[in-house]
């Protein structure tokens, strides 16, 4: 935890770029009416509790792993992003990173 000496030292709002990206995806889907924020909180709280059963979660990677798991669950259930489709696109992205020369922009074909 921080203490009074570090209270005003700026720290990054998001520790990892993917934390910011999954946060923005969720806020955007909520604003587009995909789910209410109360629904989100209920689902997310349940996943956090599940992940925290056998250990204390930190507020960084652990927290956003639970966040991502919640979003995957909701989007698989409502059909927007079925698990098989997510797995497939995840592999496409991995391949794109491995096949793109260092320094070039990584993109999916036809994305």
């Amino acid at each position: 935890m921080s203490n009074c000496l570090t209270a005003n030292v700026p720290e990054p709002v998001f520790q990892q770029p993917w934390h910011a990206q999954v946060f923005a995806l969720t806020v955007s889907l909520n604003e587009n009416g995909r789910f209410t924020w109360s629904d989100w909180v209920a689902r997310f709280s349940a996943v956090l509790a599940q992940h925290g059963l056998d250990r204390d979660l930190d507020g960084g990677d652990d927290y956003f792993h639970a966040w991502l798991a919640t979003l995957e669950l909701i989007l698989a259930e409502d059909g927007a992003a079925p698990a098989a489709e997510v797995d497939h696109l995840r592999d496409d992205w991995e391949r794109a990173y491995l096949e793109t020369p260092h320094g070039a922009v990584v993109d999916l074909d036809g994305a």
Partner: protein
Amino acid sequence: MPHDHSDHPHALLPPEPALRVKALETILIRKGLIDPKALNEIIDTYQNKIGPQNGAQVVARAWSDAEFRAALLSDATAAVSDLGYFGRQGEHMVAVENTDAVHNMIVCTLCSCYPWPLLGIPPAWYKSDAYRARVVREPRRVLADFGVTLAAGTAVRVWDSTAEIRYLVIPMRPAGTEGLDLEALAALVSRDSMIGTALAQKPAQKPTQDPG
């Protein structure tokens, strides 16, 4: 799974969750369910525009303006909306005021509910299991970890935020700040003081009542 790729230098592979987030993003964009520009706007807003400086303005005004303070304590959502602070996760805000008798702290025991329009995105420690569990059970010990010791007669009240209600702590105005303007006052109000894990800072000038 690490692999040796020194012969074929390629783009750095992001961590597993980042690949999965990119997969979700690609699917949702292709289906027209989200707009990539909206994603960038959201990230930019919380990284660069909205943060505890907003809440600090509210506290400074409450310290300086009795009418505003009364309005803030009776209907915080309306009072801060008048200052331009409204939006996501700020639909129902409640201000709780520290006094000699009571010190307030906020938490979200379920996840991380927080008054975004006033404080931005919560820090990692606010989202940790350690804080969320301990602040309810042993608030004075948590305060001690943050370097705060309260007078023995001061009660501690912990407010549990929800998706519906977000709290903001109004810290006590430090002594020796009588002549300061709003900007100077706001500079004394840290994020943690509005969560309740810190006190407002004393002004840099020598306090009028120096016990030493």
